């Protein structure tokens, strides 16, 4: 990856809190077009918070630092505005909404994004044609569209449904928050293949994960270790293997030693 590539997301000294508790404590990250980043770290290190802050979750307040998407300040934007600009958050726990069919929801989301991009909105029949290819990509059958959004979906089905949404919405930046958790090996492969097929040189992906396993299927360009609300180490994919065998503590120790 070259430094010439367009910067998609840039965080500098980013601080954020929830209900007065500070979680992000000066996070730096630069993501360029075409890149895949993985953010790893222990529970409570702030990984999921970072995902939500980028997507605009209203419970988190940014208190300091800069957060830009394609050169534009994100901090004041509502989540739906961020989504329309091309930010996608794949949820760790996708929400069930009984009574709203998956198909109607997907079309509504698609048309919202299309309208924002000045593209054509699709009626139900056109959308039905459009979505068939995407369903195949995730090995989902059309019956998924008639079910209530995520209601009664297995863990794997929910995660596939998230990637289906990513495939439909074609974001510039996809943050996948623990998309691999709760997946068996077959589902993991399907999800990873889907992500790889969607990814191109124009967009970027941030994988938030505990485990190295996902990275066997989606190869990251950079691996970041988060601890105490900051990124304390950045490396290449070999770092993931090292973390897998040695744990996180040595990275933390190394960071502390450096800081001292």
């Amino acid at each position, binding site marked *: 990856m070259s430094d010439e590539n367009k910067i998609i997301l840039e965080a500098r000294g980013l601080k954020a809190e929830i209900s007065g508790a500070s979680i992000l404590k000066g996070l730096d990250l630069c993501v360029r077009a075409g890149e895949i980043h993985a953010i790893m770290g222990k529970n409570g290190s702030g990984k999921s918070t970072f995902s939500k802050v980028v997507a*605009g979750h209203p*419970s988190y307040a940014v208190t300091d630092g800069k957060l830009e998407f394609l050169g534009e300040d994100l901090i004041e934007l509502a989540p*739906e505005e961020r*989504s329309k600009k091309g930010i996608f958050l794949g949820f760790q726990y996708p929400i069930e909404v009984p*009574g709203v069919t998956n198909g109607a*929801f997907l079309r509504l989301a698609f048309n919202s994004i299309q309208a924002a991009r000045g593209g054509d909105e699709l009626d139900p029949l056109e959308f039905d044609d459009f979505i068939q290819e995407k369903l195949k990509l995730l090995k989902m059958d059309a019956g998924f569209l008639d079910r209530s959004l995520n209601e009664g979906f297995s863990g794997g089905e929910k995660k596939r449904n998230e990637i289906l949404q990513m495939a439909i919405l074609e974001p510039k930046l996809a943050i996948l928050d623990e998309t691999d958790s709760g997946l068996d090996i077959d589902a993991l492969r399907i999800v990873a293949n889907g992500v790889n097929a969607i990814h191109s040189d124009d967009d970027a992906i941030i994988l938030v994960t505990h485990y190295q396993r996902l990275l066997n299927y989606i190869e990251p360009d950079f691996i970041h270790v988060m601890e105490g609300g900051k990124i304390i180490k950045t490396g290449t994919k070999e770092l993931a293997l090292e973390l897998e065998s040695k744990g996180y503590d040595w990275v933390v120790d190394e960071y502390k030693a450096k800081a001292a």
Partner: protein
Amino acid sequence: MRDIADKFLASVLSKTDRYSSEIPILRTIRDQALRKLTPGALPITTDESWRYTDLRSLYGLNLSSVSESQQIDEQILQSFRLPEATDFVVTVDGIFSEKYSSTLSDKEFSILSNARANPAGIQVALGKALLGTLEDRFGDGFSALNSSGARDIILVTVNGESALERVIQVLNVNTKKDVFSCPRILFDCGVGVEATLIEDSLNIGGYRYFTNNVVELFVRENAKVDHIQLQREDLDSFFISNSFVNIERSGTYRSWAISCGAKLSRHNPHVYLGGNGAHADLKGLALCDKGRVSDTHSTLYHAEAHTSSRQTHKNIAADQARVVFNGKIKVFKDAQGTDAAQQSRSLLLSNRASVDAKPELEIFADDVKCAHGATIGQINDEELFYLKARGIDDRTARSLLNYAFARDVLDDLPIKSLLPSIEENIRALTSF
């Protein structure tokens, strides 16, 4: 407050004393009602079942009744006719309108009118046997006021003679300010017959009126009745409705009471499970915003063995709205094997909206299953964030969640053509 209630009663009675029909049954129910309508007959907030709903604003009105049916733009009227309806019956300010109504069969349908001579035939005999029986037994001051003040009474008996399953739509239209009307229906669904009754109450032109509605409904052995009550009155109006239902052996009654309009609305369904194996399924949806009040007081009477009931009541309250649900279930001593389940769920869309929800069980039998539950909550922020994170704007996301909340009341609504209007009302709650 008792004074103004009594003054209101006297004033309303004075407006209807011109009804002195020659038809004996009308005289009978009128006299019966008048005997009850003495001072104190209309409720005030010190009455237990009215403590959450203050009628002072109604009692302060000076109302009149009309004696002539108003002309209405036929096109507007027809736009309310549901495609599923086999029979279309229109009342205008409480007066039956022959001109706008169309019914399949005279044998099954007729009008008892204070303004007309005695009609002949089986309908009248039916009226004589049934009219007022349930109202007299289960009713209150307002239903008695209807018995004394209804000008025209719609009699429907469905006996299964016609091959077509009957879907009878009664459209109660209000057109005038400061008028009170007393729509009244007697519906008799014969043994083994399936039929649908839709009551749709709305306004064309008028505002700040008072509708005092009563329906008596008889579900005969093995009969199956679907009953839809859609209240979409003017937002300055008052709406009080009493439904009395008697279900005989193995009969099934399903109802959907959807309350969208009125400044103050009160609905009292009384459902009497009076035969072995009778079943009732009550669904209610109250949509309320601004400073409006929507109150439902339902009573299910499990009078016989092996009767069952299901009740789902949903409230959505926005702005400073006030919603009340009181669900009483009475299980009589002989009603062994009763199986009743009631749930009420309320969604508060603002900090100033309020809900009072109360299940009330009176059980005198010992072999009984009686489940009840009530929840009150707000829109879930995580659900909202999820939808917005997909580019869906705040208003659309909220109305989706409201619709999702209401959907189990609407899922099996048999008259699908009503859904767009109800959905529109759900959306309207989110337009702030």
